[in-house]
Each structure stands twice: as C-alpha cells, then as structure tokens.
C-alpha cells in the first residue's frame, strides 16, 4: 500500500533524545572559537615585558581550534538552541572556559601549577570569579601569567553579566527580571537585538568602571601616595575587583597597598556587588533616585553597613586594631566577603572565632541580583523573608491574600517557589560539599580542620575565594587532596551557574522524552 508506506516514512523512527545535543554543542563551539581570541591580551603583556608568548598562543589556538572543530562537526544543527539547550550551553561553556584558562598554567606555571587538577582549579576559580588559589609562590610566576589570572576573572565577569541579563532569566533562574523589559524570543543562540543592546550597555558600564578604578589606583602611584601601586598592579586589581573575583598578584592580597588604595577598592567592590542594570539606569541615564527606590539595593547597603559596624566594634573590642585601621579593616573584610570578592587587607584567618563567624555568615549573603557577585544574593534573602512573614501571617488568618512584592510590583508565585527551592539546594550542596571536604582531609591529612571545611565549601560555592584555616586569605588551597580540589571545582562551577541549570542536567526528563 503506497499510502501506508508514505505515512510510515513520515512517522519515521522514534527519537530518544529530548535535547538537541548537536545544536548545543554547535553554540558552545562558536563561543569557544571567540573565547580563544582572548589569549591575545596576555600575548601582548608577555611581549611588553619580554616574556615567553607561546603558552598563550597555544592556549588560544587550542581553544579556538576545538571550538571551530565542534562548530564544523555540528554545522547542520545551527540555530535550534532553545531554553532546553540553554542549560547545557551554559554549563558546558564554563567548563570549556576553565580548561582554556588552565592551559597557560600547565605550560608556564612552573612546579606549583604543573598538576592538571591544580591548573584546572585555578582556571575554574578564575572564570567563576571565585578567587581561591593554589598558587603559593607568586614570585615564580611571570608577569604575563599573573596578569592572565587576573584577566580570566575579568572575562568571567563579562560572561556573568550576559548570563544574568539574558540567559538565566530565560531559564527561570535568578529571582528577578534584571531589566524592566521582557526578554523576547525563544532563541538563545540569536540573542535578540534588545538583549544584545542591553548587554552592550552593561558591558560599557563594566569596562568604564574598570578603567576608572585602574586610573584612580594608578594615580596613587603617580602621586607617590602608594609606591606599591604600579600601573601593572592597578590594572591587575581593577581586573579582579569589578567581577568580584579576588585574585591578587600579591601573596598577601591587598595588605601591601596603602589605606587610600584599600578605600578605593572598597568603593569599587560595593559597586561590583550592586545590580548592573540598576547602576546603568542610575549613572548613565542619570536617574539617581532608582537607587533609593530599589528595595534590594537598600537592603544590600544596610547589611554591609550593619556588618561593618559590628566587625569594627569587635576588632576594637578585642584590641586587634583601633581608629581608622579598625574601621578600614572591618569595612574592607565585610565588603570583600559579602560581595564575594575575596580580597583581604589583613590575615583574617587569625581573628577570634566570633569575627570569623560573622564573615562566615556574610558568605551566604552575596551581592545583588544582576551583579557579578555570587552566593545566594540579597534579593533572594529579601523575598524569602517576605515569604516567611506571609507564612506567619497566614497561620493566624489562613484566608488572607498577600502577594509577595518587590519594589511594589507583585512577584509571580512560581518565582517565589523557585527562590525557596534555590536556597534549599544551595544549603544542600554546601552541606554535602563540606562533608566530602571534611572526610577527604581526614583521610589525606591535608591539615584542613573539620570546622574549616564548612567555610571552605561555602567560599567555593559562593564564589568568594578565601576560606578559613589553611585556606585562609594568606594561605593556599594547594595542600588539599585531589578529591577535595575536584569537589571545590564542582562547587565553584555549580555556584556560579546558580545551581539549577546544573541540577536540571541531572534529571532524566532533561535528556529523554
């Protein structure tokens, strides 16, 4: 029967895979192709200082080559990247970027970065803007490699801005629409013109703030206020402030720099932890009142101020520091940890446990939504607080209808549920990660105290950087065992992608029909 066979041909064989794998790989390949070009910057730095350029040339060539190859192999699948594929693209891109960052470390990092796991750790810490490091001997690294570390964080920050404004809201992760506009269109691959324009304007802000910080810091050197702050250091630290990264070229982080430089960095850390879309409206559109009207921003500042005051008082009370130094020390550490930057102006790992607990709690606060900061983020705390208040209210009056509001407009109930789920997942990942770290360090005898495993897992998941104990701000993650390092790599990755996109990949129905 010709009719039946025609129908059979139309029906075709059963399809197993629900996700359009080739299309996702194609997009990752395209991103990899362009990412490789980023190696040109460290090449230029190496040329300037007369250092070896080949590690970066190799890294760039390999990354672009792999990207190109992936793109070519899946050329037929172009343009079918939807929400479902988006999760995969996001997850894979960060894994790929971390590998890219690791290549120069393997080739030019010397003894301390020669293990692939260590190099990958450093690469992931860079692209997730965490700032945890396995480097112990900074002088051994060439200037170009040092600058590469800083630069990977800066690139990661750019990626996060796109992630936060274009990708995560489409994947219903993140807790709020960052821009006022709805994000149109089902295609993530061809980011619509509106999103591109938005990303571009936020990038302008990001680049502009980085340039401004570089200029301010460098001028301290030029004016003789801070001799340690050379042009190189100014750029290197601006590169890791704006993405709330935390890598430093100095073994003792920000400590060697002058108080003025530290205060400037505090201001820029605060800016980096604020919502970029809000800052765009406030600064570039000249509408400063949006800051006062934004509930999240108000809470963000209030929390930073409160914690700073508390820490300052404790520092003074314990006699660790006094006067301007106590205030600076308190404010710097609070802002650095809360925004998940991870700089330190002093070795806070040596502080009494009351102060450490304060910093530990701040690791769970995070920056604002739409910032480069990580962790749970202020807006989720804010909304969770409102949900709890409603629950209490409804205990007394079950009939009362109370929409959860953010900046006076009602928040969708689904979003509210997603936030509660996120926080539970976050705590879950932290608990499991801590357990693995604690067990592994007990087995390997790496010297990480069990209690410090909690802080170390939190610092990785929140993309903060330094932990406590041996992983403290002046310490290093190098002594940890390989299982611990792999766990931390996983936590950094999951934390940066706001957990859900990775967890979705683990569900059966993501892959199968």
């Amino acid at each position, binding site marked *: 029967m010709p009719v039946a066979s025609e129908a059979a041909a139309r029906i075709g064989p059963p399809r197993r895979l629900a996700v359009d794998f080739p299309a996702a790989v194609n997009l990752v390949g395209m991103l990899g192709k362009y990412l490789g070009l980023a190696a040109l910057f460290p090449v230029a730095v190496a040329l300037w200082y007369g250092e070896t350029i080949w590690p970066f040339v190799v890294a760039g060539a390999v990354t672009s080559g792999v990207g190109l190859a992936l793109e070519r192999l899946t050329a037929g699948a172009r343009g079918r990247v939807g929400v479902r594929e988006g999760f995969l693209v996001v997850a894979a891109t960060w894994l790929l970027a971390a590998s890219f960052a690791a290549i120069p470390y393997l080739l030019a990092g010397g003894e301390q970065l020669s293990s692939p796991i260590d190099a990958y750790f450093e690469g992931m810490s860079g692209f997730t803007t965490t700032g945890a490091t396995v480097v112990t001997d900074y002088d051994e690294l060439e200037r170009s490699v040092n600058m590469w570390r800083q630069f990977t964080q800066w690139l990661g920050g750019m990626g996060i801005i796109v992630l936060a404004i274009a990708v995560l809201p489409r994947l219903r992760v993140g807790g709020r629409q960052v821009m006022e506009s709805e994000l149109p269109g089902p295609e993530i691959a061809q980011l619509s013109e509106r999103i591109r324009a938005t990303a571009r304007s936020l990038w302008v802000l990001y680049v502009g703030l980085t340039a401004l910080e570089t200029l301010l810091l460098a001028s301290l050197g030029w004016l003789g206020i801070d001799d340690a702050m050379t042009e190189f250091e100014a750029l290197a630290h601006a590169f890791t402030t704006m993405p709330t990264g935390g890598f430093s070229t100095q073994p003792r982080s920000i400590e060697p720099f002058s108080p003025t430089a530290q205060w400037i960095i505090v201001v820029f850390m605060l800016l980096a932890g604020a919502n970029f879309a809000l800052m765009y409206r406030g600064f570039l559109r000249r509408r400063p009142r949006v800051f006062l009207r934004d509930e999240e921003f108000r809470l963000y500042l209030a929390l930073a101020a409160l914690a700073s005051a508390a820490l300052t008082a404790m520092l003074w009370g314990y006699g660790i520091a006094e006067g301007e130094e106590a205030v600076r020390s308190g404010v710097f550490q609070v802002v650095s940890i809360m925004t998940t930057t991870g700089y330190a102006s002093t070795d806070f790992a040596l502080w009494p446990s009351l102060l450490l607990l304060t910093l530990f709690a701040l690791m769970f606060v995070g920056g604002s939504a739409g910032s480069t900061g990580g962790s749970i983020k202020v807006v989720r705390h804010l909304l969770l607080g409102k949900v709890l208040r409603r629950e209490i209210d409804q205990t007394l009056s079950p009939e009362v*209808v109370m929409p959860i509001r953010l900046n006076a407009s009602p928040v969708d109930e689904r979003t509210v549920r997603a936030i509660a789920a996120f926080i539970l997942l976050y705590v879950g990942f932290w608990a499991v990660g801590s357990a693995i770290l604690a067990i592994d360090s007990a087995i390997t005898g790496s010297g990480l105290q069990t209690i410090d495993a909690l802080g170390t897992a939190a610092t990785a998941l929140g993309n903060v950087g330094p932990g406590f104990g041996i992983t403290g701000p002046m310490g290093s993650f190098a002594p940890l065992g390989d299982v611990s390092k792999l766990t931390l790599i996983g936590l950094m990755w999951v934390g940066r992608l706001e957990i859900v996109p990775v967890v979705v990949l683990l569900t059966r129905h993501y892959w199968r029909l």
Partner: protein
Amino acid sequence: MKVFLIGAGQVGSTVVEALHVDHEVTVLDTEASRLQALTARFDVAVYEGDGTSRKDLAAAGIGAADLVIACTSRDEVNLVAGMFARREAPRAPTVIRTSSIEYVELWREGQLDVDFVVSSELETAYAISRIIGVPAASQTDVFADGQVQVGEFEIDEDASPEVVGVSLRDADIPQDSKVAAIIRRDETIFPGGDDVILHGDRIVVIGSPGAAKAWSSLLWPAGGTVRDVVVYGAGRVGSAIARVLIDQSINVRMIEASREQARRAAESFPSARVFSATGFDPDFIERERIGYAQAGIFAMRDDAKNLYAASLTRVHGIPFTIAIAHEAMSVDAFERAGIDVSVNPRGVTAEEIVRFAHDPRMQQVAMLEGNRYEVLDVTTRESSRYIGTSFRDMPVHGALIGAIVRDGKAIFPHGDDMLQAGDRVIVFTESANVSWVVEAL
C-alpha cells in the same frame, strides 16, 4: 430640547423618567419589550434598533438631536454609539456610560471624544465615600469639585445641645456652613436667626467638607470619623469603592469569595488586607474581628447576599452598614431590614446623567428626600436683579443660597457679602420653585 437616548434598561428608564416632561425624548434599544414598557409609562418616541449600527441611529433620527445619551450596560456599544453620534449630530453634546474606570481616566485626559463620561462604579464609590465621610447624614452631595458639601441630617436624642433647642443666632454653628432648611413634619422652614432646631427635625446644611464633618460629630457625638472599613466583594464596584476610600487613608479590609478576584484586588491595593473567603462563616468573622470595623460596605453582585452579609455582620457588631442595591426595589427592602444606607448604582448613574442634561447654565443638581427638594448649582447672569445685593437684604422666598463659587473658590457668604455677576451659586430650594429660582438668578 431633543434628547436621543440609547439603551432602555434601568439607567435609561430612570433618565427618561426625569427628562420626559420638559424634553422631547427618543429611545433606541434592541429589545422591543423594554421599549413597550417605556411607552406604556411615558410619552416618548421609541425605535427598535442597534446602537452600534450607524444606519439604525440615522433612521431613528439621531441627526436632529440636541443631546445624545448612550447608557446601555455595554461599554463597547456606548462608545461606538457615541462615536457615530459625533458624526451624525456634530453639535449635540454626547454623554456615555461606562463601567471601566480606564475610560473615565481617558476622558479626563481628553483622549475620548465625548462630552461627558459617567461610570456607575465610580459614582457609586463617590456616593459611598461621601456617606462614610459624614456618617450622621442620611444623604450628602458635593458641588464645585468637592469644595461645597450638602448634607441632610436627622436630629435625634444624641444631638449636641450646642445647636439644638437654641436659636440659630446663639447656636454654636460650625464655621463655613449654613442651615439651609429645617424640615419639621411636612413643613419646610428657611430659617432666620430666630428659628430653633428641635429634636425630631431634619435639617439641610450647606458648607465646606470640614464643616459637614463638624456637623456630623455635633449631631452624632458618639461616632468619630470612620477610619476602619470592611468591604464585602472585590469586583468592579467593590474595587472602585476600596480605591476611593484608600485614597482618603481609610483602613480597608476586603472580603472576596473568588480566589482570582481576591488575588487581583490584593495586587492592586497593597495597603488593603484582602481575604479570600465568603465572609459568611461565623468563625471567620469572629477570628478576624470583622465586627470591630466602624462600617461595613456590601458590594457583592447579588443583592440577597449583600443583605444577608450586612445583617450577619451587624449581629457581630458592625455599627454602620452600607449596601449596594443593584435592583431599584432592593433600596426600600434594605432600609426596612435595618441597613443604614443603600446605594443603587444605576440610580446614581441616572442622576449624574440627568444633572448633565439640565440647563447648561446649571452645572449640577442634587435631589433630597426623593425629589421634594433640589440643590442647584447655577451661574448668575449679568441681568439678574440680585446682582449687587448684599446677603443681608436678600429676600427669603422658599430658596436659600448656601455658598457661592467665585474664581473657582468656594465662599460661604456672610450678611455683608454681595452677589456678583458670573458667580456660581449653590441654592437649596423646593422642587416646585426650581424654574423661577433659575430665572431670577
């Protein structure tokens, strides 16, 4: 004047009732039975046709109209009819009825090409807000954009001796107000300084909104200002009421049975506490202390539910109840049943339309005691014989000027003030005297 009316429903027939004597009225409706009912009662021309059909409108003679009123229950019909009326009868003012506050706002912004837009919901909300503002009054109305308030009060045993039982000259009357009339049984007194207010009288007061509140507390000392209100029903009427009351910073609690509507109300009124409940459950009423509210407003779609809820909450302690009576018949039934005030949205709408249809010099009319008395808002002519007369020398002939509006500001005149040409005067009079009062001014 030739009046062309689209819609012979409840609003339409009330408007016809008010206008058919003095005007030549044509009514268009799609339903023959309604038109028949109308012709049986009034001397009007009727035409069976569709308000959205330009052909029908033309055939019914809209082109000759001096005033077009579109008052069907459907917004779209009224809008389209209003649009066609503009084309067919370009010089006739058009009035349309709407249930959407959005259209009212559009019209206020000048985006809607009609002369007057009436919303039942909004008029009902305003009526209720006036009642809430002056709880002792059995009826109130506002003039001159709310600068002048007219209220009718019953004088019972609670009334303060500062104003009752003493001559008006010696009574402690609130500033910026005037007693326009004392109604004693069937007799109407336009009071002078020697007259006395007695228990059992009803009085009509014209004054500033502040003065009206002061009168309310003089006559009902136990009742302070209403600050806490429960609204049953969060539909269009209930929401309009809540909006108006919240604007006056009155604390509003809303009870709505439909989850969806409750959610919408909760989203639009952040300061109101909205409950998703029928509100008939005694446990709920007890637990939420509904009875502690100073006033209950019942704005559900069903008159029977409004009556029941009002009675129920009264049992639980709400001292003052206002119910929406969608059916004209319900007004009397509600009042018999002990509801303090009932408001008929269609009646209120019709009244608003009739106000517009009157003499163009006359900005507004209010009717008191059915239609035994009227309060007029008239602009004085150059040729009026009272121009330049001081109020002391003004004769008292069954009418009284309570306030004048000069350059947009309300003045409550004293003996030495003089009437000027172009003043808008707020006059209280018996309905029988309206025509000569208007002529004299």
